């Protein structure tokens, strides 16, 4: 069975790849496109470490097939900074020590950015419930939530 030839947009750039039907978008990103910033923590959509956005929509890359990316626009962690300019969320995560081992961090950053795009002034509870699909085992979430709220403040210009 021939592979699918897929063309899509990835972090603003044109991309094309070959994939078999069973390969997930996460497999394609990591193994074929060599973008290992999205992580596999569970392969079943329970941990959020593979979070990316698809046409602006927050999803788990492990629960989408590579072939479904045809014609779509994908954003991964590798596209979050612009050159050497970090996104406010990336800066705030560093300032607030919101990462210890860092494996969940790309997923949290993508998920948090998605939240703030829709809700620029979330409450603590709204942040926690939006991020319930991202597991962290190191931080207890405390500094992650603080970093997101602080980034939101900065992005609102407050």
């Amino acid at each position, binding site marked *: 069975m021939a592979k699918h030839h897929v063309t899509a947009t990835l972090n603003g750039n044109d991309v094309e790849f070959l994939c078999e039907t069973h390969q997930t978008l996460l497999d394609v990103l990591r193994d074929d496109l060599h973008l290992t910033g999205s992580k596999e923590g569970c392969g079943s959509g329970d941990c959020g470490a593979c979070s990316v956005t698809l046409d602006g929509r927050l999803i788990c890359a492990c*629960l989408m097939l590579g072939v479904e990316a045809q014609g779509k626009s994908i954003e991964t962690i590798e596209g979050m900074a612009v050159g050497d300019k970090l996104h406010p969320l990336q800066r705030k995560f560093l300032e607030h020590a919101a990462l210890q081992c860092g494996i969940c961090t790309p997923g949290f950053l993508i998920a948090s950015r998605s939240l703030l795009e829709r809700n620029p002034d979330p409450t603590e509870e709204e942040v926690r419930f939006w991020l319930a699909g991202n597991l962290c085992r190191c931080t207890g979430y405390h500094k992650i939530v603080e970093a997101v709220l602080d980034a939101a403040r900065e992005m609102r210009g407050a």
Partner: protein
Amino acid sequence: MSDMRYEAPKTVEAAVALLAGANGAARMLAGGTDLLIQMRGGRIQPELLVDLKGIPEMTSIVAENGSFRFGAAVGCMVLVEHEAFAKAWPGVTDAVKLIGSIQIKGRATVGGNVCNASPAADSVPALIAAGAIASIVGPKGRRDARVEDIATAPGKTSLAKGEIVVSFLLPRRPPHSGDAYLRFIPRTEMDIAVVGAGINLTLDDKGVCTQARVSLGAVAERALLVPEAAAALIGTKVDAAALKRLAAAASAACKPIDDKRGTKIYRIKVAGVLARRAAEIALDRARRKN
């Protein structure tokens, strides 16, 4: 696995033809959030995947004279973000909001949630309580079915080979109607429902309940419609005594199992508690709605 075909038809008819004509195991692909997990675990090894997301009829949300028809492949996040729908059917919206995480909802669909036929699916009790009708297209043409008639057993539906649930119709509601869905889970998010309770009720001008539908999830092989529980509310002002009878009827209707998510005893108890609490929310919404 490496011989698995993938097709993305643009019409319902084309999708039906692909599914009906498949020799080996064929699967519909909407959100994929259940399917990909089942494929990964080796539980199913389809030879054909039919992607439904490119079919306009299956991804639209249309309001008509107060009723709503939404495509079975509408993403959950798209549905919960639809202001008019959420206003008309807050209980159904509550239920869809509880499916998985934001990421899961970014892909998952109500069609998939219903047709995956998990007894604990969150959208189902709310849809049943709402009286939702599924519009089905198959090799023999179109037909309608009540949502409570779709799932027959865990993982099994009443759909024939080649039949696709294309959309759901939520009928126009009388004034003073409210619906609610509650589920019990051990954490605050991310768990499969241990018990789910969906209630839809209508009051008359004097505040007396004239119609009600009560549905329970995760307490039997499929979601239950519980007429005895609804009967406890109809003709009453949904006072404490009526709610007590509702809870008892809900508990009595359960046929649960012991599994890693809950015990029989626990589910029976909590079903009554949730039914009561959901009724209170539905009542409040009905009172505030003209």
